[in-house]
């Protein structure tokens, strides 16, 4: 399947992948991340049960401490 991750096309095996699996695969290692799928914010507690499929647009941004 092909997805858009942070505006870049990524090809990956399989037909779907959980948010958690995608973050691990793409080495988003920080504990706090903003994830949006097709514009919808995904809560951290839903990372295991929400799946990304072909054509989905995913945005992931690290949240850094400091202010």
């Amino acid at each position: 399947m092909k997805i858009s991750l942070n505006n870049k096309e990524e090809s990956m095996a399989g037909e779907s992948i959980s948010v958690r699996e995608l973050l691990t695969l793409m080495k988003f290692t920080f504990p706090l991340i903003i994830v949006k799928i097709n514009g919808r914010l995904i809560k951290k507690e839903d990372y295991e049960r929400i799946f990304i499929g072909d054509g989905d647009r995913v945005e992931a941004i690290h949240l850094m401490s400091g202010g």
Partner: protein
Amino acid sequence: MKSKLEKLKGTCIGIAGCGGLGSNCAMALARVGVGSLVIVDFDVVTLENLDRQYYFIDQVGQKKVLALRENIRRVNPDIDIQAHDLRLGPDGVVDIFKNCNLVIEAFDRADMKLMLIETVTERFPDKFIIAASGLAGYGNNNAMRTRRLGSLFICGDEVSEVSTELPPLAPRVAMVAAMQANQALEIVLDDLALLGDDDAWD
């Protein structure tokens, strides 16, 4: 320009956190003439805060929201300021910011940033939120940027996390605070539309 000033006068902006980001952002918004500010923080001013936060040495020990209100009023006595001395959780966010046109995320801790972004996005789908991520250290001016994801804007370099080796310093903290204030002006003065779920990535 007159109508723009009128528009700002009728605008209410919520600021969550009155540290380096919140205090500098509030002062910038007060100087351009935003009519009302809702400021929230539970902390007191310390000597260490003076390296980047908009407070003065004689304010050490004072509640941040009260000290900031005083500083804002010294610039613009006509501004309406609601100061809340408390630690924000999801319920507080909803209650305190319900009448604001938009919300500025100015927390220090990343878990608090996430809580605010999740709460505002979920409970106030019609409000913009302007967050900050990545401002520690010095140099690298051109790494600073703003990204938009629907109703959420994120200002900062998205990589430099505060640590003992990489402290938050006045110039970069004030840069990001000013970017947040500048983004707020653009939202208000240009009537930016909430485009729903299909926004393009900036």
